[in-house]
């Protein structure tokens, strides 16, 4: 099965060219993300299934077209999970797409990002060669770390065939607390707590019709969660409501996030665009038009705004961060990602050329002409 799929991909890659490139796609759940690109779809979904899973090794190897939900169910059976809590953005989400998009969920600040859990990949490069990098072990410094480089590469370097991921046991205990507080005060609190040995695994500040609140998730040993609850105070959310809140945050279903289709171009009358601002956690409240939702202890902030892209980027860059136009019209997403300094852009171009010298994979998802 794998061999037939790989052979088929190889043939298509060799037949493709910069003029008629391939667009790698899993479930298409993150097709909204990044610059709009055209290409003939190379669908990975027939390449699915768990290749190897040994809970005591804390490693799972899966084919890239495996539905993410299926993988999570397999892990849950053994009391394990993906600690970076990837967003799905639709039931069709695949494991390959999860790695290629490189997006992580509410636990990211504490647990790490997708890239921190990628141990190995089997990929097909732009010349149709199936290559293995990394492996199934926690520590591996033989050769450059290509597996982690694939996280967030958005199909620009090659086709993911299989990925090996580090998995972790689910925490024994969890609790979610909610405190009423302004954004400025929430930022101060989150940074103070971050410096203490508290089992905080996720935070979210938002302003709703009911007021401004900071929601905090604790997880770990039972005793640690209990003692932290006493330190932090606030109201305890009921289990079901807490789980629903974190799921809705991760999947962008909270009222803060307008329905996916309704986003307009920045600065136009079509409605606000959704920006993802990545910042030092200590950056102060940013003065930008539109509501914000703060995650990751202050390091990830969502902004629904119709401000000019240039203005958003200037403000964020001054605060030491970078801004991604996460959801918006195709026109607005022409510059989805923060511009790179010239020497880095040159490295990006040469990297792409070394992975895909013939331009078999549709270029430009990250940056124009790349």
């Amino acid at each position, binding site marked *: 099965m794998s061999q037939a799929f790989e052979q088929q991909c190889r043939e298509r890659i060799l037949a493709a060219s910069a003029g008629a490139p391939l667009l790698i796609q899993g479930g298409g759940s993150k097709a909204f993300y990044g610059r709009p690109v055209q290409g003939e779809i190379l669908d990975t979904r027939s390449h699915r299934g768990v290749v190897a899973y040994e809970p*005591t*090794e804390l*490693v799972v190897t899966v084919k890239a077209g495996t539905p993410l939900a299926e993988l999570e169910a397999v892990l849950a059976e053994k009391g394990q999970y993906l600690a970076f809590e990837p967003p799905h953005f639709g039931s069709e989400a695949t494991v390959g797409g999860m790695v290629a998009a*490189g997006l992580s969920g509410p636990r*990211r600040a504490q647990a*790490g*990002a997708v890239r*921190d859990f990628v141990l190995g990949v089997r990929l097909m490069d732009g010349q149709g060669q199936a290559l*293995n990098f990394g*492996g199934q*072990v*926690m*520590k*591996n*410094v*033989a*050769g*450059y*770390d*290509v597996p*982690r*480089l694939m*996280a*967030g*590469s958005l199909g*620009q*370097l090659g086709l993911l065939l299989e990925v090996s991921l580090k998995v972790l*046991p*689910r925490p*024994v205990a969890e609790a979610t607390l909610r405190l009423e507080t302004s954004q400025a005060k929430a930022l101060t609190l989150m*940074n103070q707590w*971050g*410096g*203490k*040995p508290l089992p905080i695994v996720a935070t979210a500040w938002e302003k709703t019709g009911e007021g401004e609140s900071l929601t905090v998730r604790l997880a*770990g*040993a039972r*005793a*640690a969660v*209990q*003692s932290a609850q006493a330190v932090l105070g606030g109201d305890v959310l009921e289990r079901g409501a807490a789980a629903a809140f974190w799921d809705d945050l991760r999947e962008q279903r909270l009222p803060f996030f307008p329905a996916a289709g309704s986003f307009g171009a920045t600065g136009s009358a079509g409605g606000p665009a959704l920006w993802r601002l*990545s910042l030092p*956690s200590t950056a102060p409240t940013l003065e930008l038009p539109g509501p914000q939702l703060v995650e*990751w202890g202050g*390091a*990830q902030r969502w902004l629904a705004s119709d401000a000019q892209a240039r203005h958003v980027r200037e403000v964020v860059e001054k605060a*030491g*961060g970078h801004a*991604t136009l996460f959801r918006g019209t195709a026109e607005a997403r022409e510059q989805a*990602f923060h511009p*790179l300094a010239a*020497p*880095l852009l*040159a*490295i990006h171009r*040469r*990297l792409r050329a*070394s*992975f895909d010298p013939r331009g078999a994979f549709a270029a430009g998802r990250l*940056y124009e002409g790349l």
Partner: protein
Amino acid sequence: MGDRLPDSPDFATDRAALLAGLGRILPASRLYGELEDLKPYECDGLTAYRNLPLAVALPETEAEVQSILKFCSANQVPVVPRGAATGLSGGAMPHHQGLLLSLAKFKKILKVNPVARTALVQPGVRNLAVSEAAAPYNLYYAPDPSSQIACTIGGNVSENSGGVHCLKYGLTVHNVLQVRGYTMEGEPVTIGSAGLDAAGLDLLAVMNGSEGMLTVITEVLVKLTPKPQVAKVVLAYFDSVTKAGNAVADVIAAGIIPAGLEMMDKAATHAVEPYVQAGYDLEAEAVLLCESDGTPEEVEEEIAAMRAVLEKSGATSLRVSANEAERLRFWAGRKAAFPAVGRITPDYLCMDGTIPRKNLAKMLLAIADMEKKYGLRCANVFHAGDGNLHPLIMYDANQPGELERATAFGAEILELSVALGGSITGEHGVGVEKITQMCAQFTPEELALFHGLKAAFDPAGLLNPGKAVPTPARCREYRQIRGEQA
């Protein structure tokens, strides 16, 4: 041995022109060209491999680094960056036709930010110095390689160093937020950010473990971690290495992620005990050190769980550290394992293979057979939780043939690591030492991609050439020899 770099292209460096050119950038006090000044730089922690550079430069400022790189780039001179040279794979061994660029003068801690929980440091800052500077804020830098007293952050990034606590707290790659530096062409680059990610491809991921072959690092922003309130370690003794190896899997299977999970065999405890008086049981065939950290309640809960699992796995006796002094003493033995073995043998080679945990016992038995086959002793120290092995092969370089036998012994361990589903190196890097074994782990096409990746950062191939990634010619020869043996 290894006094040349066969995987490097030949460079026609003019020594006099190099010294003259660098002399316009650096004062004579920070530029060496005479044999007696070059000699201390001829090797790193892998002393079996030596090479003299044409010159050694000790820049103090980023502007000097940039000028040096621009000069070398314009004149096709290879450059080998070097930190504290504690590396164990020859990654900082000089190039005989090139410049050794020491970052030893870059030893300032520029800023410790307790609120952001970060430290901005120059690459020549020692690993432990970061934790010391962060200590007043109850923070520390988590990766703790055994060489942490001496090794520097720049080198840690280049090797993606681990330590005894990385199962829970991650490797260097998980604890570095941003690096600044210069490409070989002298272009300034900032990779990563003060946030949790950066725009574009994740170049920070490839910087970690790049063995000084992609860019020269002049500044590193590291993440600091809150110090756990309490830590305790369980010593568990076993009457067979197989049982100890299986106990490691049992601990993980119970849903426990220890702060540290280390193993030593009898040969290692016998080397260590007279050196540090840790109080190890010398009758046991193997000892596991299993650490828990967190709040006092959390640690009590976890230690109880660890005890239950280890007893069930057949531990012959258990000891829990009663206080911090005892905990440090238990660890002292493990951390001093390399120098302790160094005391009982004239020379040793330290291997660094990584294997799936389930194969630990199988590997130990195979090593015992290899000891007989090669007629050399081997002490085994493992980061068991990560499946990272450090067999210490003891030999005497003054005895004809012993180094060759030790090298073959080591190569067999590494090749078995690959065959058991692992890697030839977990944290020490490939350098010059394991470059041949790269041919066992990777296909020619995979190695070609590594060369392409390097060229993306360093198109002229001047930064630390001839290391880490073998030439196709070396691998053709390797496969031919293996084919004949098979």
